[in-house]
């Protein structure tokens, strides 16, 4: 049975349709909801938290996923990793990595995917590491789980990984426990663990939030350099627009579980099409602007548990709202024609 909430509605024009043959990550019309108690009582399928999201990522690309907390960015990453919380439900759509369908993957296939194809770097690196095991051994565990290596081989590879992520005094650090390392160093270790998978797709969920600003810049530079050297595809989740601008080739902007704009990073930020992207930009501190020049965004994210959400979930905060925004999902509009990776698009009725 197809439980997709919107199967009766006409499909929106979709950025996926005219893409080149083999994107590494392909998300098509994906909806994710939560099986909450009220939904279970009513007997209806859960309301979609992430709604009909489509995007794709080519090898070598770095896609920045931006939007306020609660916009569904992390939920998407967790779905790609197969790490959704137990109450989350995929309500419809497709999710493929390197051509493989993730939604029908068996536990054994997931294990293979997580050992060889996918890797994730989390926001709180110290919490993601085992506190009672030296980091060298944690790296060796990861390496030995994917290939039969002798202890000496695994140790040599662990050291090489620490050197690649530019940890100083790497040989001495192999014996260090996470609490003996700074937050920035822990994040480098986590990146080394991710690289030990030789992943084709790297997911990074706010990897530098909470770190010092100089450390943030260094880590992101390292991450994007390693990704481009290895021709990995990278999905970088962040709420920092300036950071996304500096380190991502492409941007995808999410609001309240809906994708609202995608395109080359420079274009999206310099000529934002969607009122939400414009609002985010207008609230972001930047050189040459005083406090009075910046504009706070009106309203806050709508409650996604509401059954009466407008079709465009930004409608209630939008200054350019039209009557159809409440009922008709906005069509995707492109700024100009061109190859798919250069297209800059947004889903908003004001662009008609």
């Amino acid at each position: 049975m197809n439980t997709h909430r919107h199967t009766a509605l006409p499909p929106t024009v979709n950025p996926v349709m005219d893409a080149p043959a083999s994107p590494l990550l392909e998300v098509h019309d994906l909806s994710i909801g939560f099986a909450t108690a009220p939904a279970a009582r009513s007997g209806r399928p859960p309301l979609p938290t992430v709604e009909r999201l489509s995007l794709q990522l080519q090898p070598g690309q770095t896609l920045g996923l931006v939007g306020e907390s609660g916009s569904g960015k992390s939920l998407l990453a967790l779905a790609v990793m197969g790490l959704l919380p137990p109450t989350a439900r995929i309500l419809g759509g497709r999710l493929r990595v390197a051509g493989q369908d993730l939604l029908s993957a068996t536990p054994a296939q997931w294990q293979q995917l997580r050992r060889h194809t996918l890797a994730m770097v989390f926001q709180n690196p110290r919490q993601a590491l085992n506190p009672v095991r030296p980091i060298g051994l944690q790296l060796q565990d990861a390496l030995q789980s994917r290939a039969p290596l002798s202890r000496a081989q695994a140790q040599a590879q662990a050291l090489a990984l620490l050197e690649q992520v530019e940890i100083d005094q790497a040989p001495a650090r192999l014996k260090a426990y996470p609490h003996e390392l700074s937050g920035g160093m822990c994040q480098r270790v986590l990146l080394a663990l991710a690289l030990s998978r030789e992943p084709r797709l790297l997911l990074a969920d706010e990897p530098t939030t909470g770190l010092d600003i100089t450390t943030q810049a260094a880590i992101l530079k390292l991450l994007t350099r390693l990704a481009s050297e290895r021709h990995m595809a990278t999905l970088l989740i962040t709420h920092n627009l300036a950071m996304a601008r500096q380190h991502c080739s492409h941007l995808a902007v999410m609001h309240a579980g809906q994708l609202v704009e995608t395109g080359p990073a420079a274009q999206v930020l310099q000529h934002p099409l969607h009122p939400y992207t414009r609002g985010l930009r207008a609230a972001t501190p930047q050189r040459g602007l005083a406090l009075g020049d910046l504009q706070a965004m009106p309203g806050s994210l709508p409650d996604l548990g509401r059954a009466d959400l407008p079709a465009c979930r930004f409608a209630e905060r939008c200054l350019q709202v039209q009557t159809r925004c409440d009922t008709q999902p906005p069509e995707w509009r492109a700024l100009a024609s061109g190859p798919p990776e250069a297209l800059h698009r947004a889903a908003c009725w004001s662009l008609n």
Partner: protein
Amino acid sequence: MALLEVESLVKTYPLPPAPGQRAGRQAPVLRAVDGVSLRLEAGQALGLVGESGSGKSTTAALVARLADPDSGQIRLDGEDLARVPARRAARAPWRAQVQLVFQDAAGSLNPRHTAQEAIAQPLQHLAGLSGQALQRRVLEAAALAQLPEALLQRLPHQLSGGQAARVGLARAIGLRPRLLILDEPTSALDVSVQMGLLQRLDALRRELGVSLLFVSHDLEVVRLLCQQVAVMRRGRIVESGVTEQVMEAPRHPYTAQLMAALGELDGAD
């Protein structure tokens, strides 16, 4: 005379003895704050910038009198606050004049107290208010922080990050302090929420004349709010001055590094 004058402040913490060190030798210490001097005029905002471990939060905690300095002076309007030990500072007559706003807004509120109770407590304990007078001041504090009245009966877990930050601000501003110490109050917030809070702080400074000591690792945010900035590294102030001037022509290599780490939305890659 400046409102706040900090002079040669030093705070050390003992380190574990080095392996093999004989007992009786002088124990090694970490000089967390190593001779810091600051000046803040009434109605002005001073940004204290630096990386984790630079001593900026320790300096803020010393000025707020949550910890005792090893030596140095902290003068508020000429009165040396450092002479009262931290454990008795909570009852000192100037306590209401110096208030704090913390980074983890929700985490710094008692989870079992409503926003209303959280805002009322300092007014009860430090201003001795009760009954209708207390209620009036709570509403006034909420208005100053632009916290909607409808949220006053909520518990911390029922508030968003931005709303919790406003409760923290209302709690601190209710007493009409002369000095507000803010330790990274906006670093965990979305830009959309951060901007509103920064504009509110600036308005409180201009309208009520509250002085702000603003601790942050983000120079861009400090530039928006603070006329003066002091850059800390390894317990010392390495550069200070008018914010615009320091940012335009940083003289210390560390300040230049901080500037280089700031991203830009426009311009070439």
